[in-house]
């Protein structure tokens, strides 16, 4: 589904991503771990096209997309939950969700499952996104990314600031989406237990490079916990 080869990324003079390789498959969850500042967010932003990569290739659905604009990538079926929520503060919850449907026909309804998943959004449909509490905003951001039914879902620390019961729900949802088999998922996560529980594959990053990767069930055995700790 997604095939990333040797991408390099810079901020001004500093080298942030170094020859990163990454794959994501339909029905599988790929978890990216790493300490603060190793470049996880940068990686996702590069995949989304928000920052153009210097070198390397990104293939999605067997097509190269490294030169596509973010909206072309979104239309190709990549959904993104950015770090720090980034909801549209002055749009209502409903409008935020409609933005998630931007490239669908205007008449497309907001999928009702979203409200089953995040009931609070239904209650607050007319409230401005910016007025929601942090956790509510995070839920909204996930719902927004799901609204259009992407083929690849990328989540940047989606559990940040969310209450435990909903984290569990989110975990269940991610699992369920993966198990349906029509979506590939890339999950950036710091919350180790959560990550381990979901990972089909894992990737550990360090200083902008991939330090280790493997199967999710081997995470503990491969010593991933220690890798992210040091």
């Amino acid at each position: 589904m997604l095939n990333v080869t040797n991408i390099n990324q810079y901020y001004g003079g500093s080298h942030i991503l170094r020859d990163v390789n990454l794959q994501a498959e339909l029905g599988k969850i790929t978890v990216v771990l790493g300490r603060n500042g190793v470049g996880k967010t940068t990686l996702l932003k590069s995949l989304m096209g928000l920052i153009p990569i210097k070198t390397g290739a990104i293939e999605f659905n067997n097509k190269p997309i490294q030169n596509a604009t973010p909206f072309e990538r979104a239309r190709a079926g990549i959904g993104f939950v950015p770090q720090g929520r980034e909801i549209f503060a002055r749009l209502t919850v409903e409008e935020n969700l409609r933005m998630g449907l931007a490239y669908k026909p205007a008449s497309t309804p907001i999928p009702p499952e979203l409200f089953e998943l995040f009931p609070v959004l239904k209650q607050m449909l007319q409230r401005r996104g910016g007025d929601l509490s942090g956790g509510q905003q995070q839920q909204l951001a996930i719902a927004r990314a799901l609204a259009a039914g992407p083929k690849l879902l990328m989540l940047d620390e989606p559990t940040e600031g969310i209450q435990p019961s909903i984290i569990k729900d989110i975990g269940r949802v991610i699992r369920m989406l993966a198990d349906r088999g029509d979506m590939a998922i890339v999950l950036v996560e710091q919350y180790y237990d959560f990550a381990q529980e979901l990972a089909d594959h894992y990737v550990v990053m360090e200083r902008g490079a991939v330090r280790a990767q493997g199967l999710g069930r081997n995470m503990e055995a491969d010593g991933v916990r220690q890798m992210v700790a040091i």
Partner: protein
Amino acid sequence: MFKKILLSTLLLIAGSAYSITAEEVKSITIGETDSRVEALAKAMLAADDKTAAFLQALSDDAVKVAGDKILVIQGDKVVDAVTQAEVPLPDDAEDVINNNRMRGEIDSALAALKLFSKDDKVRAAAVKQLQSDADETKLPLIEKALATELNTSIKDQLNLVRAAALLGSADKSKRLEAAQLLATSGQANTKTMLLARLENETDAEVKAALGAALRQVESALAWGDKLGALFSGISLGSILLLVALGLAITYGLMGVINMAHGELMMIGAYATYVVQGLFHTYLPGAFDWYLLAAVPVAFMASALMGALLERSVIRFLYGRPLETLLATWGISLMLMQLVRSVFGAQNVGVENPSWMSGGVQVLGNLSLPYNRLIIIGFAIFVLGSVAWLIGRTRLGLFVRGVTQNRPIASCMGVNTARIDTYAFALGSGIAGLAGCALSQVGNVGPDLGQGYIVDAFMVVVLGGVGQLAGTVYAALGLGILNKFLEGWAGAVLAKIAVLVFIIIFIQKRPQGIFAMKGRSAEA
């Protein structure tokens, strides 16, 4: 309107020979004003349709003098006023010059003659004309007209005229009657007449009656004044609204401190001028409707210019609002100079179509000019369209989304570049519409925009940036406040007071009338 009808009726009779003598024609046309007036009065004693036709020609500036010949222009023909023979126009033919006094005399003479027209409208206009210069000499005429008049509303008016004429009568009872009659007239000039009479009146009883009449008239006038002030406030508000609406999009929503907004209005106004010129040349018959064609053209002209600016300059500046101030300032300088190079530094003339000139008389002293009424309607129309576009359509949603968070909107699949261009073009197009409207009330010149840009920003900011409803309240509020203050403090102090008001108001509401509250405001 009525002039046209009048003209056609007059043209019918114009074919026949004039009964007024050559001498009369000459002495009415040439000479010192005093002697001309005298001659006119004399001719009126035996006036008929022919006299009327000649006077009408005089009044229409269609009479020329060549040597000792008096010529009348009738469409393409030139005829000798006396012999009615068609003659070529001599090179040395000069216009007859009527000064205001002469014009007044001719018009009231014409009015007197028209009192017996078959057309109700012509008669009504004639009566109205007589109102302003009724005196006892016209009394026989008025009585004669009264005797034959059947239309009740004209008759009422005639009675007022008669009363006005009687006001100067030597007969006390007539004066009393006149005073009572005049009390019901809400006309401003009635007040003049009553005042003038009051000054000369010696009889106590009449004086009292005059005083009472005056009070009644004055209170009727006071109403007109109040409503008039309110109307001008609303009208000014509607202009401010039009001027600010485009800015509410480019600045309020998109965050571009668009100093070239005024120049985009100017482009709309010049587009209107160009359309007017095209109609003049190619569609003179439909000239009156040029404005309808100008509206979409003005919109498109400014919208295209806006799109061009957005693509070439503005798009590099999103997220750097203060930089947009600098760049758009540069753009505004260039656009102004461009217009100077193309159209010249002077103002250009944009005419009101005939259906926009004049106004409806609501009260004696309150007439609402059509151009203002139409602009108010136009402002409401534009406002409605913008509100619908922004609040109810996907384009509006995308515009708001994109302007709040451009990268994330693009991650949602929105083609942000295109939306930006559309939005900026839309805001610019609305500026063009404002310019089109302004061309009907103000001047069209390279500086047009400069005069409104400060006001436009005040309105948007006072309303609360990004708040369409606030913009509406601010525009109307400022308009009415300004006009209310102007009424008793004069234009200069009123303007200062309004500015001070804005400063103080913002202290109370640091985010404008419709402040966004809560966290979302900070985000």
